[in-house]
């Protein structure tokens, strides 16, 4: 957790410095544009540095709850995140209706659900995608796999 705290604080500081720096040196925004970002960015830098110092020293803050990591290891987190992220290429390559249904089918099967449950739920998702989002809400969902759009 300590490493995570330090990494997060450091990343936050880098992000703020990069953005403020971009505003100053790349975009050359005038003062009236940068006034508020300077103020907020300055506050964030101060607080971030304070936090970073505390994190390095292992300081425990008032009101801090006990650490309760969501995942047991980095490996488990990576696997879980990869599974969730996999929906993106699925919908991009196959289109939303097919992509979501196929993603769900594969997910359920790999995670121990039976064929019947998996197929029923995937088909239900397909029906919801089509009838609720495409027909009723008239959302312009990408329907077709890439390269196959009519």
């Amino acid at each position: 957790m300590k490493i995570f705290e330090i990494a997060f604080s450091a990343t936050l500081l880098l992000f703020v410095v990069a953005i403020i720096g971009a505003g100053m040196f790349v975009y050359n925004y005038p003062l009236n544009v940068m006034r508020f970002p300077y103020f907020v960015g300055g506050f964030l830098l101060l607080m971030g540095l304070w936090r970073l110092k505390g994190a390095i020293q292992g300081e425990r803050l008032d009101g801090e709850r006990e650490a309760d990591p969501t995942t047991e290891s980095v490996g488990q987190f990576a696997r879980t995140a990869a599974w969730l992220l996999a929906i993106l290429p699925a919908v991009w390559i196959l289109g939303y209706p097919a992509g979501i249904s196929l993603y769900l089918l594969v997910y359920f099967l790999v995670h121990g659900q039976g064929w019947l449950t998996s197929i029923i739920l995937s088909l239900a998702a397909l029906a919801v995608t089509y009838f609720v989002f495409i027909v009723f809400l008239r959302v312009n969902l990408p329907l077709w796999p890439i390269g196959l759009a009519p």
Partner: protein
Amino acid sequence: MEYFSLLSDGFLRVMRPDLLLIMLAAIPFGLIFGLVPGLSGLTALAILLPFIYGMQPLPGLALLLSAHAVIYTGGSVSAIILGIPGSPPNAATVLDGFPMARQGRGGEAMGAALASSGLGGIFGVLVLVAILPILEPIVLLFGSPETFFLALMGVAFIAVVGEGPMQKGLIAGALGIFLALFGYQSVTGVPRFWLGSDYLLDGFRIIPLALGLFAIPELIALSAKGRSVAHDSDESRITFAQVMEGVRQVFRHPLLFFKSSAIGAVVGVVPGVGGETSPFVAYAAAKQTSKHPELFGKGSIEGVIAPESSNNAKEGGALVPTLAFGIPGSTGMALLLGGFLILGLEPGPEFLKEHMDLGVGLAMVVAISNLLAAAVMILLARYIAQITHLKGHILAPLLLAIVVLGTFASKQNPLDVVYVFIFGALGYALKELNYSRAALILGFVLTNAIESSLHISLRSYGWSFWLRPVSLIIIALLALGILWPVIKRRLGARKGGAS
């Protein structure tokens, strides 16, 4: 007496079969849009808007208002059982509602949330009707300086008093403000930090941000371990008795309910601030004055009652500037305003002189919709709460699909879906490290109000803008709210010393 006769006239005006049917059709619509993460209340109103063409004013507006009034009622349900706010203002309910669900007390949490929502909505309406004859002077009390301080109060309050350590709350709030600085800013006319991307011309979007911060971490949790939401609990069934226990809790905390609803109604009056601020301010105020503040964030029923009472009360408040000046009191009201114009009506200073009866009728529509929605959801609560017992490996991918579809549907931009995951990474880190995601969201949504109103205040009034009477009251309330525990301790020590 005139007040009661206004109320009763308004009530009778609305008790028509056609109006009741319209409300009964619109309410489930609003509830579902509130309940499903990613489907925003604005989308619901945008879909209903074309239907009002050609309708009479009261039925047409009733259609829109009934759906709108119950969106946060639906949103509270997903906030509690999934830890994903149905709408950004429901994020405050996640703080205690979701822990309650994990403890198997989801039914109780829902009962409390639904009853608070229903009764809070009625409170907001009662306040609205009471001040209808004097709406204009009330709205005119709040100018840009007051908007600035209220917005600042919202962020400061939740950052200092909300979940997690104060230092981290302040960082999260400031980060939310910083993220909101991207894109077009009306004061300067320059799109800041847009990095050459059309997407960032308008900055980051609230739906991907809110879903990323709240939904993705919960989906990781559900998916990683495969356990249900209520895995901490031995209870295998959620009963109607549990739901009703939650309802009764609202009546056991009358002061909390009235205080939170009052905060909602008052803050709702200020355009641009009320929508997201009031539930967080109510939550923070509840925590500050509770006998057991240490329970907040761990499943305190007070932490559910406060934001939900305030959430629906604020909609009555948001109608105030909408009717008095045609200034939308919330983003939903902006759409409603469009509805007024489509129906040939023009809210504004002259509106209530000619259409007081319509104004009261609309207030009654809000009250009745809140009551009906709460009643319907209370009856269904125990069934909906069973979702907390679904296995994580089933619930997670289904929710993910809904989040992806709902996010795309909001602006029909595929990049929004990508940003859900980017913000999801941020949300995961914030959650693991005990930073307040609520403070970040609030900072994000209030930045425009803060920056614009500060700019206007300085241009119009100079540096002494904070010396206006209402501004001073708000500053005093903010200071009191933050320092209350210290004051309480000092008073307690003095009493102990004296005795």
